[in-house]
């Protein structure tokens, strides 16, 4: 099973490396969004500093949605879905493999966004451990939810609008938890940052379980 | 808004929303039924239900 997961993940990442969508387009776009936030808030640094955590996760949400879309467009083009179904790879492995690939991509996105908020928004980190734990938990939740809801809208004609509609309500708690945890880690809010990070792990766990159970139904078309 | 006005508005919205939705459902059923040529058979039933809901 582990080899299958790695196989799927490696396949996705190889496609990504060749197309260079994540690094070449999504990451610059997300950085641009960080800049636009600064304009919108009139570069009022105290406001930016307080909102940095939330703005960071909003940028991740935006970039992540594009990556999720992309991850399934690759599958549904040219009947790849049928090919995948026919390969002997089990549904759970497929689910986890795609989630792993997304995890890597969103991590790369965050490695660019993270320094972005530190430099552009002038914030300092007081708790590195919490920052990383929150980032990892949030990315896990993002990628698992993303795969589960991405497949829901895969191959449909209106997926560009449907995916955000389905995904945003599910990711709203992750966004909330991520923002609060980051605010604690960046020292602008005293609070239970670790609890929030824990909540994101729980969301990721619940969706992993749901995904393992439901992925088969979603891919077995008719 | 006073308490009484709020209650009136709240109940009003509720009843109007439910009546509109019921009417929409019944009329849509009637419309498609006619389109398919099966509405005529049971037309009277549908009409009775329409009047029953729009009042509520």
């Amino acid at each position, binding site marked *: 099973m582990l080899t299958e997961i790695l196989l799927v993940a490696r396949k996705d990442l190889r496609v990504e490396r060749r197309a260079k969508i994540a690094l070449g387009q999504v990451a610059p776009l997300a950085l641009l969004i960080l800049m636009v936030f600064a304009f919108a808030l009139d570069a009022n640094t105290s406001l930016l500093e307080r909102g940095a955590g939330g703005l960071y996760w909003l940028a991740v949400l935006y970039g992540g949605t594009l990556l999720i879309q992309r991850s399934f467009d690759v599958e549904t083009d040219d009947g790849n879905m049928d090919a995948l179904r026919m390969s002997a790879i089990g549904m759970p492995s497929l689910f986890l493999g795609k989630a792993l690939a997304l995890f890597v991509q969103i991590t790369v996105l965050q490695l660019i966004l993270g320094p972005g908020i530190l430099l552009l928004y002038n914030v300092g980190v007081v708790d590195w451990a919490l920052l990383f734990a929150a980032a990892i938990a949030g990315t896990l939740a993002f990628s698992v939810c993303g795969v589960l809801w991405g497949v829901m809208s895969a191959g449909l004609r209106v997926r560009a609008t449907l995916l955000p509609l389905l995904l945003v309500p599910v990711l709203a708690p992750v966004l909330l938890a991520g923002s609060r945890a980051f605010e604690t880690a960046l020292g602008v809010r005293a609070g*239970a940052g670790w609890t929030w990070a*824990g909540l994101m792990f729980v969301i990721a766990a619940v969706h992993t379980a749901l995904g393992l159970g439901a992925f088969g139904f979603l891919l077995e078309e008719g | 808004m006073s308490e009484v006005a709020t209650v009136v508005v709240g109940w009003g919205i509720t009843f109007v929303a439910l009546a509109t939705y019921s009417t929409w459902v019944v009329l849509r059923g009637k419309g498609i039924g006619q389109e398919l040529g099966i509405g005529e058979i049971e037309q009277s039933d549908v009409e009775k239900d329409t009047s029953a809901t729009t009042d509520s």
Partner: protein
Amino acid sequence: MDLTPLHEVEAPSDLRRRVHRRRRWSVLVISAVLIFAMAFITAQGLRNATLFFRNVDEAVEQRSELGERRFRIQGRVIPSSVKSESGLTTFEIVHNCVVASVLHSSDPPELFSSPWIPVVLEGHWIAGEVMTLGGNDSHYFSSDRMLVKHTNEYASANEQRVTEEPPEGFLDQCSFEVPAAAS
């Protein structure tokens, strides 16, 4: 369109059984993880992390930590303490026998006039000597936003009169006495 009659392409029964067994297993895993997650959420309690408001006793305890920061405070209004003057309302709120003095600077909602009503106030602590029912205090709460928090107790106005008495048992453990309202 697929024109094959569907009942002819059913999976062989042994294959189907295997699929079913795998499914039952995954359902078990799902429910186990779900239960675990729910238990985790309730036990660890996001209640500390998602404080919509702090009760008076907690807000007093965390005074140094809170400093001048804005937060929400919750307590029941002591009826005899309410005084209104040129748009400013002063009163005292109490929770768990801890009293705080409040200076409120906007129009209170209508239900504020009900005795012992629980309210949620938005604002911050300000240093200043005040005299409250619970004794002298070094801070008062400056608020500009008031929400009335009504409880899930409903009683008919025909049977029950509005009383000035505190809710049953609410002040039993307290060291101070509450004077009757001036009215």
